[in-house]
């Protein structure tokens, strides 16, 4: 005899887990993009600092 209640619970849990997985993947992807963008900004800041230093050295 199959326990319908148990099946429903399990199915619901799996649906929830799938949704969680999808959400996590989305968040992860966006975080990675954000990290990349931060690296780019950091690089630009470094370039700016380098320009300041170069100017102050009279180069």
């Amino acid at each position, binding site marked *: 005899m199959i326990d319908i209640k148990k099946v429903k619970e399990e199915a619901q849990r799996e649906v929830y887990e799938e949704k969680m997985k999808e959400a996590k993947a989305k968040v992860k992807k966006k975080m990675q993009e954000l990290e990349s963008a931060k690296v*780019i900004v950091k690089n630009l800041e470094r370039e700016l600092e380098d320009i300041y230093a*170069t100017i102050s050295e009279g180069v």
Partner: protein
Amino acid sequence: MPQFPRGYDSLFFQSRPIEVYFKGFRSDTRTLQAAGWQLSIEQQENTPYRGYKCRLAMQHVESGILMYAHEPIDIDLEVVMCSYVVEAAKRQLTGPFTVQHVVTNHHDIHLHVVRSGSRFNFQAVDAEPLMMPVDNVSLRDLCVFRTITPDSEILVPPQSVPELLAHIQSLQDPKQKEIRERNKKRDARERLNDAPKIARVEAQIITLAGYR
């Protein structure tokens, strides 16, 4: 604050002052506006590429006077807007407006006006001259001629945000490498400058063997 009409048509009014006459008095749109007159023009049927006729109405709220130049003048856009506008101004090719009707607060002027949409033909205008750069462009440069053969389709490779970010980073890489090298040299120089000065000790070995 009046809403001045925007666009090509209204610009003629700001190009240079147009003279306004009234029974021996002479003034111009700019001077009148500066003296507190509120100006309004009515555009009449025109040939859009060339110009149009217009009438002037104005009021001086403080004095309670309303004036109306019933006789329309020709506005030649080509003359007013083109590069020889200065010459045109000298020759007074546009205007003057001649005021025919003047009433005070106790009277009014009744006109037959045609409504188009929600606005009257009369529109408030700004008579303050406006400097507008006019470029001398060749007809060929205007690119007004349509090509007969259809333009080949420009294909832009589809790129996602992560790909573009990676591409930007790769473009930054050579510069970053240079900067790192320079920073290393700077650090080395600074370390050298900051290093404590070690006193040089000069030692001299003297042998005492001969003094026995």
